[in-house]
């Protein structure tokens, strides 16, 4: 009988170990509690410890990367002590670190080498004018135009009448020291349009700002950007207030086509955007008149509704938009809370159901810069899917519903403070452990939390392959309520809201429908171009369901194809990211136009293949389990 000693960094006394003992068991005797959310089954990876020295045998390393292993990490619940060992137990916040299967959206990064002089269409220059005199009776306007021409080479200048009303006063009160903000294409000798004239002293303390906006059917996101440095000063999201008039684009179009419905929808989305802009301005101390440019991504319906263009034709055969390539618009006519003469750049779409959110997304995802076959999925209320490479791009759209954004779910919420974003369930006790954004008591469940929760409920047998909750389990967490069967994720006394946070059978159905639509969409798309999904080199995921996605769990419920985890990248909200790039750089903006022109749109409603693929995917993970070999293997192991 072997006898070893184990030394833990937080405990002075070494403890004796007998043969075959697991690290958790030894730790327990040393008085160290190692939390095991999955019940010690090696599924969650949260019990990782670092073996500083000595021999151990790792029965499972599924949750650890090679870098983790090189650093000495081991799962306490899966590791047998086979020698005298010295073990470091990371503090709880370190145990919270992300796993190999977690894919986190990157932070916003200013594009390398960003030079506003070259890249930006909106610029602000300081001009020192010589005051008029009896020798120089040039008019005020001519004086400004001449100085601007000298400073920038701008040949012709245009302005609104309102600008001219105030021009003389500003010139004199500023003692002829002014800052001029204007928009121009950037080529020598072309026409510029005046956005703002202000005293130079005022401009010195105020960054020149722009907005990148994504109008989602469910969620609206804005980034407030310093156009001089390219830095993102503030990011904010809110549910689109239009939700109260219908959850999907079709119901919005129907509502918008009746009476004053279009005006109502326009007012609601403007209220949402302007609420976010005002909050961003308050938070950063920036005057909304400092915002000179807004670049907007969004699906075609959202774009039509924001800009007050009747959207009916989008819904009716032959499904055409009123306009895909918008001219540059003036802020006041659009209604965004920024400088009235600021410019609004609505990005171009491809078709009725493939809008500017996707063209911007393709730019952000860098699809055209790789020769590899890449699948890009924008998981939103409308799931848009693009397959291709630098050589070709095909695209389709399918209606997933708002579940991934936490809407239409009883206790769903946006991926905000208080949202449950990941869940592990103990397979023996059915007790959950949740990670909550901001580390506060939970208020609800966001999209990534739902994916995680349903995946865990499935592997632990709380739901069957059809998504039915097994009410015969011996735990108070499964129960029948007036709304049907449900599982309690957090009890009222743990929750911020003082009520039980639950997931219901209806919620699970909504999630199943959403994931089935997305999975069916990219399957049909791949079939159309005869590309096997296994040959896809990279899967890029965009969407606003959370800050991250656990790829293993997304594969586990059959949302994503069963490919090696390293082929996936989570990009977060790609539409707003693409809008941001286009806001900064005229070349990026031109690339979006090229993307829009080169994408081939596949209509899924042309025959019943999509419906077939959809009903087949309305199952956990899929009716045809052979498409999910890794899930099948995991199920065999669990069984």
């Amino acid at each position, binding site marked *: 009988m072997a006898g070893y000693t184990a030394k833990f960094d937080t405990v002075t006394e070494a403890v004796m170990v007998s043969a075959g003992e697991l690290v958790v068991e030894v730790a327990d005797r040393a008085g160290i509690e190692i939390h095991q959310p999955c019940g010690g089954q090696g599924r969650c990876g949260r019990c990782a410890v670092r073996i500083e020295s000595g021999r151990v045998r790792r029965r499972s390393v599924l949750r650890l990367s090679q870098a983790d292993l090189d650093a000495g990490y081991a799962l306490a619940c899966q590791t047998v002590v086979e020698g005298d060992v010295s073990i470091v137990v990371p503090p709880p916040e370190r145990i919270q670190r992300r796993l190999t299967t977690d894919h986190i959206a990157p932070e916003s990064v200013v594009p390398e080498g960003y030079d506003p002089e070259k890249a930006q269409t909106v610029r602000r220059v300081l001009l020192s004018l010589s005051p008029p005199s009896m020798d120089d009776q040039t008019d005020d306007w001519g004086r400004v135009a001449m100085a601007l021409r000298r400073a920038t080479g701008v040949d012709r200048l245009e302005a609104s009448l309102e600008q001219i009303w105030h021009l003389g006063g500003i010139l004199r009160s500023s003692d002829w020291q002014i800052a001029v903000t204007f928009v121009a294409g950037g080529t020598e000798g072309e026409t510029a349009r005046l956005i703002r004239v202000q005293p130079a002293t005022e401009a010195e303390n105020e960054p020149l700002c722009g907005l990148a906006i994504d109008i989602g059917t469910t969620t609206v996101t804005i980034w407030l950007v310093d156009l001089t440095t390219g830095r993102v000063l503030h990011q904010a999201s809110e549910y689109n207030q239009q939700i109260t008039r219908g959850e999907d684009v079709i119901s919005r179009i129907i509502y918008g086509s009746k009476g004053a419905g279009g005006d109502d929808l326009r007012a609601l989305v403007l209220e949402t955007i302007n609420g976010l802009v005002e909050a961003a301005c308050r938070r950063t101390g920036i005057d909304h008149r400092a915002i000179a440019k807004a670049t907007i991504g969004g699906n075609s319906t959202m774009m039509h509704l924001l800009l007050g263009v009747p959207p009916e034709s989008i819904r009716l055969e032959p499904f055409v938009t009123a306009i895909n390539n918008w001219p540059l618009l003036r802020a006041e006519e659009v209604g965004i809370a920024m400088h009235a003469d600021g410019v609004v750049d609505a990005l171009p779409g491809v078709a009725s159901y493939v809008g500017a959110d996707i063209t911007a997304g393709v730019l952000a995802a860098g699809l055209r810069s790789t020769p590899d076959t890449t699948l890009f999925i924008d998981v939103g209320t409308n799931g848009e899917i693009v397959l291709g490479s630098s050589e070709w791009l095909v695209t389709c759209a399918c209606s997933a519903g708002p579940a991934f954004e936490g809407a239409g779910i009883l206790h769903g919420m946006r991926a905000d403070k208080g949202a449950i974003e990941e869940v592990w369930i103990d397979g023996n006790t059915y007790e959950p452990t949740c990670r909550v954004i901001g580390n506060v008591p939970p208020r609800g469940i966001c999209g990534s939390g739902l994916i995680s929760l349903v995946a865990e409920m499935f592997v632990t047998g709380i739901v069957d392959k*059809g998504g039915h909750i097994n009410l015969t389990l011996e735990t108070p967490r499964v129960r029948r309520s007036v709304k049907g069967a449900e599982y309690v994720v957090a009890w009222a006394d743990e929750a911020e809201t003082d009520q039980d946070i639950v997931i219901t059978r209806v919620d699970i159905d909504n999630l199943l429908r959403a994931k089935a639509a997305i999975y069916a969409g990219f399957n049909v798309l791949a079939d159309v171009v005869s590309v096997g999904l296994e040959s896809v080199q990279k899967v890029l995921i965009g969407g606003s369901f959370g800050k991250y996605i656990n790829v293993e769990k997304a594969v586990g419920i059959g949302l994503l194809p069963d490919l090696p985890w390293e082929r996936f990248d989570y990009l977060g909200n790609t539409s707003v990211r693409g809008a941001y790039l286009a806001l900064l750089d005229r070349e990026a903006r031109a690339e979006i136009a090229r993307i829009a022109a080169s994408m081939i749109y596949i209509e899924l409603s042309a025959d019943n293949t999509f419906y077939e693929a959809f009903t087949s995917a309305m*199952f956990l993970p899929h*009716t045809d389990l052979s498409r999910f070999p890794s899930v099948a293997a995991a199920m065999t192991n669990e069984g």
Partner: protein
Amino acid sequence: MPVEIPKDSWPGSVNTVTLGATGDQGGSRTSTVTIGGEQSLPFMHFENPTPHRPVIAMEVAAARPADWSAVLLEAWGSTLDDPAVWARACEDAGADLIVLQFGLKGSDDGPVSAEFAVEVVKEVMDSTGLPLVVLGPGQAEIDNSILVPIADATKGERIVLGLCEEGNYRTIVAAAMANDHLVLGKTPMDVNLAKQLNILMTDMGLPLDRIVMDPTTGALGYGIEYGYSVMERLRLAALQGDAMTQLPMLVTPGVETWKTKESKVGAGIPDEWGEWAERGVNWETLTAVALIEAGADVVVLRHPQSLVRVRAAIAELTASETA
């Protein structure tokens, strides 16, 4: 020049399922019914013989049916008042098995109860030696409350219990597993939904050879082509080797036909429609024969005359095999 008929050979086949158990087999039936086993599309006997002919089940209501067509009431007369007598009459008329259908009503117009249900099943089993399919009224809680005691009371009889549906299958499957019975699963006219229910039921540990499926069909003129197509695709998938579609199919042309206007209504219709009873029987027979040609293993009928005609049609379809 001799004509050579091309022959398909399929990697898969339909499961063989035996309904009912005789005294030797742990039950009390005088005969059993074996269905399934097909290795080719229906009646392609030049490829493979039909291993088991399609069988005819007659529907017997546990309490006198309130909404049946007058044509059916006249055909059966007072036998409708007693399910045991009715079942005996079906056996005498040549039925292969009995489908005992419970409604929401029990004895004396009261709600159906477990005691009533067990009593009726026992009486029917005493009066006929045919295998049984027992169906609840189709409301999950009531179905479960009567099917579990029935399953317990008839252990070993290899009764087919139903309906198992996507939202309610666990209790019935568990009762069938515990008492050596079979189950009938029903899904709404979709290949994937049929497969999904079969996966869910077998995940509980019920062997595939104890499941019969009803893919849902419509009557002639009421969507029969849609049901036909789903059955055909299920059978093609089965023959191609997809285990979750390799189940024998039970369909209900009787139920479907006798709720159509053509069969149910006798007054205020054009003269050209012809004689009412004849029309109803034609409608049921044509629906049933079409579904048999789509691959049905069991057809459930209501009119005794339809039984005779469908029996004749099956004989003709298989004549060249037995000749």
